[in-house]
């Protein structure tokens, strides 16, 4: 099938920027409105004054508050659970948090980089060839 002129370049550009499919402006606005009115509980007048960056900052703040609330709840849960568990099988707040909050992509990249640093060149080659499951 003929892919048309510039198609390959566009595909390559998408690969470089890491975007699968960029949202259109209208799609972005719908997402922004849903987030502002739903998650952040803002009023239309407040939304009207927001830049893209400010909306992102508000979302970051909301995420931070959510993590603090979860930490408080999980501290109580871990304390209640640990009363009934043996020392070796006791749960930590971090363990419980980890099940609900997936590490962000950057964290995954950092972890992967640290993991690769620890490997010998032979191990590195093997991981590249077979992945991490075949040790």
């Amino acid at each position, binding site marked *: 099938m003929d892919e048309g002129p510039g198609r390959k370049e566009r595909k390559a550009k998408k*690969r*470089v*920027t*890491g975007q699968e499919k*960029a949202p*259109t*402006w209208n799609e972005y*606005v719908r997402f*922004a409105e849903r987030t502002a009115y739903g998650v952040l509980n803002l009023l239309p007048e407040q*939304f*009207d*004054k*927001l*830049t*893209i*960056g*400010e*909306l*992102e*900052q508000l979302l970051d703040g909301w995420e931070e508050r959510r993590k603090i609330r979860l930490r408080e709840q999980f501290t109580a849960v871990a304390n209640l659970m640990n009363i009934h568990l043996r020392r070796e099988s006791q749960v930590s707040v971090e363990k419980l948090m980890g099940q609900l909050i997936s590490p962000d992509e*950057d964290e995954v*990249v*950092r972890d992967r*980089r640290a993991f690769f640093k620890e490997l010998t060149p032979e191990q590195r080659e093997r991981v590249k060839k077979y992945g991490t499951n075949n040790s």
Partner: protein
Amino acid sequence: MKNSVICDYFEPGQELKLTINSYSRLQDRMGKPIGELLSLTRSLDTQLICELLAEGLRKYGNHDANWYGNRIQELLDEGKMESIADIQSLVAKAIIASRFYGKELYFLTFPEEMTEEDKEWMKVQEEKREKLKNA
């Protein structure tokens, strides 16, 4: 974080701030997708600059793009503005400050805003881009 830029050309101390709704209104008025209007490969023409000024300085008075066009001409004639490139770069900075082009370009334009955490994030983004380029 900076979300607006100071624009002293029309009144001292005015802040040029482009909100999500500014872009939506601009798109409706110009009848073209905003992504196309503000494409990184396209330079900002005078009409677009005036429209963006009308949107970004909206809170200081309801002046339309024509008004800003005339004022820019007056400023150029009076020698208060050296060339149209001055206002062009200011408007471009306001677009970047609103994070229309994303966080990376924002930090590249305003490196003084970067914290240590942001620097680490930028490093990760750079690595990701390199990885995708080589893939």
